């Protein structure tokens, strides 16, 4: 063990939480949390999906009010009446769910609530200038300050969200899974910024399910389980097994299930010359029965669009999609679903979930017809099927009658994937399936995907985490700027090669193609 990094342990704490309690109808989300954060340290919060991390930070940022316990801010007990109070006290927050106003420009979003102004009039030039300054600092000067935020892809929106938190004078910056929508290069960028903040004496609370990030950036770690602190102030290099044990109460053995040796026979999906102008060009590949094909690439390389086009949610400008050798009607989701395709989309809130509806209905949504007779839904069958999926994916809480909107982020993600585990899906299109999913559940999910493949289901997987693509897929496609630049068996390719291919200006490109 090395010395805990960061400021010395006996510096006066910036923030202390004692016995904080918060309940939602039917759930005790926080049940006596203890946390101590010192100035200038990067403090990580670890915990499974639904452990209460987001709830905790929402209490710190004044969104929720605790029902019990004590919060000491710079030694003084505080109770924030609302987000405004927390902001004024010097706590900035990057929330897990995006908190941007789609129709406002990047600059306006960044300075929302504290616009530079003269007597009620916004000083627009200064707004833009300050926004650019923060974006530069984040290494993203290329994001246009005048563009409405709703027109940026998710990753860019995340950066805007960070820029907003940075634009305020904060003593403590809270980041709730900022890396979930970021690719590795963006994460590196983020870490650079965090180090700068740290150097300036600003404390950071960092939440992530990626343990290696914690090792890289954190000074200390606090682990939550079921709303309680199970370990506080662990050093960053605590062995993974120990961390996982604190989080889950058990150890997670193999992250990636073993790949079968048999070469999949039989072709399920064939994509030929698929093109959508401005998104991707001349994409061709196949997926066999029981084969898992992974697509790696940078954010913005057009992978999501490709999946959606294969699925019929977008109409291609050229090319065709064949299932079992039969051409799918372009632009028809109905045809795709009928042929056995299923898509777990990238944005769970906007693209996948009915947040006001119970989990069981969300899970049953795509296969409604299969559990109905003469137009009548067999609700019992639906509940049973949903409960089985919930068991298989370790949904927390397990109750499938809860509204989907009350689940934690990671558990919502499980519902999205779980929808396609029902019924006779033959080709599963997964777009960032593990975004925000905790280590334990992730392993379960990988196993489920592998099991499905073993049953003969084809899987097309898009992920921004290269190791996930390499570890899970049988075959890897690498996309760059809307083109497939490499197709290879996962055994014959390593992370370094993928990253080289993914980046612009790769030397390997000419050699391989």
């Amino acid at each position: 063990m090395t010395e805990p990094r960061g400021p010395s342990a006996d510096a006066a704490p910036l923030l202390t939480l004692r016995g904080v309690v918060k309940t939602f109808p039917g759930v005790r989300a926080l049940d006596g949390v203890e946390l101590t954060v010192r100035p200038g340290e990067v403090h990580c919060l670890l915990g499974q999906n639904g452990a209460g991390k987001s709830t905790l930070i929402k209490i710190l940022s004044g969104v929720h009010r605790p029902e019990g316990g004590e919060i000491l801010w710079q030694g003084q007990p505080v109770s924030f009446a609302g987000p405004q109070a927390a902001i004024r006290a010097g706590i900035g927050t990057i929330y897990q769910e995006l908190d941007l106003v789609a129709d406002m420009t990047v600059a306006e979003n960044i300075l929302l609530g504290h616009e530079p102004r003269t007597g009620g009039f916004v000083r627009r030039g200064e707004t833009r200038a300050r926004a650019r300054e923060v974006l530069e600092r984040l290494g993203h000067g290329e994001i246009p300050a005048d563009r409405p935020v709703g027109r940026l892809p998710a990753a860019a929106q995340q950066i805007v969200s960070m820029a907003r938190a940075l634009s305020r004078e904060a003593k403590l910056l809270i980041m709730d899974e900022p890396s979930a929508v970021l690719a590795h290069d963006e994460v590196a960028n983020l870490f650079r910024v965090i180090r700068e903040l740290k150097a300036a004496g600003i404390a950071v609370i960092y939440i992530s399910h990626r343990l290696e990030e914690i090792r890289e950036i954190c000074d200390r770690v606090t682990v939550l389980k079921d709303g309680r602190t199970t370990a506080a102030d662990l050093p960053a290099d605590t062995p993974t097994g120990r961390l996982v044990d604190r989080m889950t109460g058990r150890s997670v053995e193999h992250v990636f299930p073993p790949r079968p040796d048999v070469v999949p026979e039989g072709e399920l999906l064939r994509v030929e010359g698929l093109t959508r102008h401005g998104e991707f060009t001349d994409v061709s590949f196949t997926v066999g029965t029981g084969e898992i094909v992974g697509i790696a690439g940078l954010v913005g390389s057009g992978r999501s669009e490709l999946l959606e086009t294969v699925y019929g949610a977008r109409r291609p400008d050229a090319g065709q999609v064949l299932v079992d050798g039969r051409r799918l009607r372009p632009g028809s989701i109905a045809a795709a679903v009928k042929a056995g395709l299923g898509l777990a989309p990238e944005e769970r809130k906007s693209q996948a979930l009915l947040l006001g509806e119970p989990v069981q209905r969300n899970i049953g949504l795509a296969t409604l017809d299969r559990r109905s007779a003469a137009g009548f839904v067999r609700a019992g069958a639906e509940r049973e099927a949903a409960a089985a999926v919930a068991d298989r994916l370790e949904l927390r809480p397990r109750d499938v009658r809860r509204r989907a909107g009350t689940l934690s982020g990671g558990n919502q993600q499980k519902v999205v994937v779980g929808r396609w585990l029902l019924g006779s899906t033959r080709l599963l299109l997964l777009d960032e399936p593990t975004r925000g999913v905790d280590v334990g559940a992730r392993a379960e999910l990988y196993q489920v995907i592998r099991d499905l493949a073993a049953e003969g289901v084809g899987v097309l997987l898009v992920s921004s985490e290269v190791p996930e693509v390499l570890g899970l897929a049988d075959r890897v496609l690498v996309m760059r700027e809307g083109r497939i630049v490499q197709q290879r068996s996962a055994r014959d390719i390593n992370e370094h090669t993928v990253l080289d291919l993914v980046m612009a200006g790769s030397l390997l490109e000419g050699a391989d193609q």
Partner: protein
Amino acid sequence: MLAGRGGSVTELASATTAPAAKTTWWRDDASEPVRRNLGLTGVLVVLVVIGLSTAPNTFLTGGNISNILTQASAIGVITIGMTFVIIGGGIDLSVGSLTALAAVWCTTLSTQSFGAGGMVFTAVVVGTVAGAVNGVLIAYGRMVPFIATLAMMVGAQGLAEKISNKQTQVVNVGSINRLAANDILGIPVLVLIFAVVTAACWVLLNRTTFGRRTVAVGGNAEAARLAGINVRRQTVLLYALSGLCCGIAAIMVVAQSNAGSSGQGVLYELDAIAAAIIGGTSLTGGRGTVIGSLLGVLVFTTITNLFILNNLPTEVQNIVKGAIIVGAVLVQQFQPRELFRRR
């Protein structure tokens, strides 16, 4: 318990028992509509108490109750159709005009010559087709529902005036007129029709794939689309259903007034939307209940009845009605716990 200050690594006995996620289903948010309906029932009870104390001799008579229910019938059927549209994420401003159009069309002399069957058929077809046109404009023409149905509201009104030449068309088909005059086992026929429509629509919303799709389309259209639901078709069907309800309501209105006129149905859209919303249907879509809308209609109809029983002048009626709406909603929302909590 966790006082560990300083850099010391404090570990707790690994918490293997999971005390947290104990769910008590009755406090669960899923029961929110039920609570809301209870609130509305409470409002209704208060109104009944007011009725009993201000008009003790007339309010709770069989005649007055069946009067209230009869008054609620036509607007009730329309509100149920509206509920589906709103749950499906839309709005239908044309219900009043469609009712007028169907009423006028089914009472022209030539339609009347086909007898009651012909009239019912005409009303239902006119309503459904016009509703479907709304749906097509919205689903395929990608018009905002508010504007598309506003255009239909204006246009159908004009068409109804054109057909009737702005004259009130008297109905001479006895069986239609008797619809409103007769009752079965003491229950007026119109009320029975309303009950049947309500029951059927409850089943439709809660037990069928159509109902599920409606909720999905209104709750998150993109998610519904990606789950393989034909959002456009569903949209057309929803507006057609609302139009169908207008057709049924038109027959009821015609039976009640023994006449068809382009002046019928005026402002029904506002009444129907208000009843649905006070019944807990969310204007942003994806949420609402048939029972809530039923209660909403009954509340409004009972208020009107109370006013007349108490002989209130219209201006006072209006002021009091505004106050009652505010009061009803605030009562309905009242949750003791929330008093002490911000959001």
